């Protein structure tokens, strides 16, 4: 977890979260994981979380792996480290594909990740202004902190902007 000011492109790995001011690009690749993008449009500060699972359930390790520990941490970093303003924050969420070939909905991790992410953002009063979710293929997302635009590319499909 770093406030990265070196280089213009910041890549986020699994279970990690990063924030940056303008002009920077933050990107990641998703499968069943969900990418949460928070953006302060006034101060042009962006943050991205790459979460793997909905709930921590007492597991130790990286808080960024789970929605219920990662989202509060991302919010805390945006507000207290980057000094973003809560009323200027909006969210965009991506990913949550069904990558594993199992029929049971119980094991549809992507769907559970999406549901928990939506619930938590609502809980923290962060408005979700755009999303591209589900499917069965991988997803590359890139946030431009200058504009707040997220370029989203699903495997085999053209790039879309959100």
């Amino acid at each position: 977890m770093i406030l990265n000011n070196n280089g213009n492109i910041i890549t986020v790995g699994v279970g990690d979260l990063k924030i940056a001011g303008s002009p920077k690009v933050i990107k990641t690749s998703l499968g069943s994981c969900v990418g949460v993008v928070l953006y302060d449009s006034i101060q042009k500060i962006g943050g991205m979380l790459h979460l793997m699972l909905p709930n921590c359930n007492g597991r130790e390790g990286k808080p960024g792996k789970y929605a219920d520990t990662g989202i509060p941490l991302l919010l805390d970093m945006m507000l207290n480290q980057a000094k973003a303003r809560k009323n200027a924050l909006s969210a965009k969420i991506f990913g949550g594909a069904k990558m594993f070939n199992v029929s049971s909905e119980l094991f549809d991790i992507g769907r559970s990740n999406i549901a928990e992410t939506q619930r938590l953002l609502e809980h923290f009063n962060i408005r979700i202004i755009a999303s591209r979710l589900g499917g069965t293929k991988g997803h590359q997302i890139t946030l431009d902190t200058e504009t707040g635009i997220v370029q989203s590319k699903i495997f085999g499909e053209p790039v879309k902007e959100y």
Partner: protein
Amino acid sequence: MRIPKEHLKILDIIIKMSMDNASRSFSKTIKRAALIELVKTELVDISEITEEMNNDLREMVASMLRLEGSFNGKLLFMIPLDGALALQDFYMQQSSGTSKEFDEFTEGTVQEIGNILASSIGNSFASDLGSELLPTPPRVLCDFAGTIFTSLIFEDGINNDKILLTETKFSLHNTEIDCYFFLLPDLDSLKESLIKLEKSF
């Protein structure tokens, strides 16, 4: 997750020997030299390794399977989409550039290479560790490099922030094609085999 340095060294040696065998089998199959450019075995942080993989924006074809037996593990053979088409031409002994689109033959080729590499690794571990290892049928994936790699480490990454990973990079002689082979051994089940081997030195 912890692994003693001595065990890491032993594993590194066995992996290097088995990748040597694997590259010979790979070369024979495609009738072209598959050169090992890099072999490394290390404990890696899941965020750092996936960050590295997420920097690779290429579309890849991969064959993923499990090794089951004396210890368990997962294997992944991954090649860029254009490389997979070239590999298909080599494998089917067609002139270069014949295969133009990903189809069931490309899928079959990548699946077969995955099988060959897995069997080769299994044989090496059988002779070096006395371990019986059998590969499961491979699953072929076509997706972004980062997404495929995350599928490999997902299960282990849930419970561990660090994973033991061996990475081998091959290049195909006289081509620009690079391909990757990852082995993700289950450390708990591997420990017993390594202790046995250490005692035999």
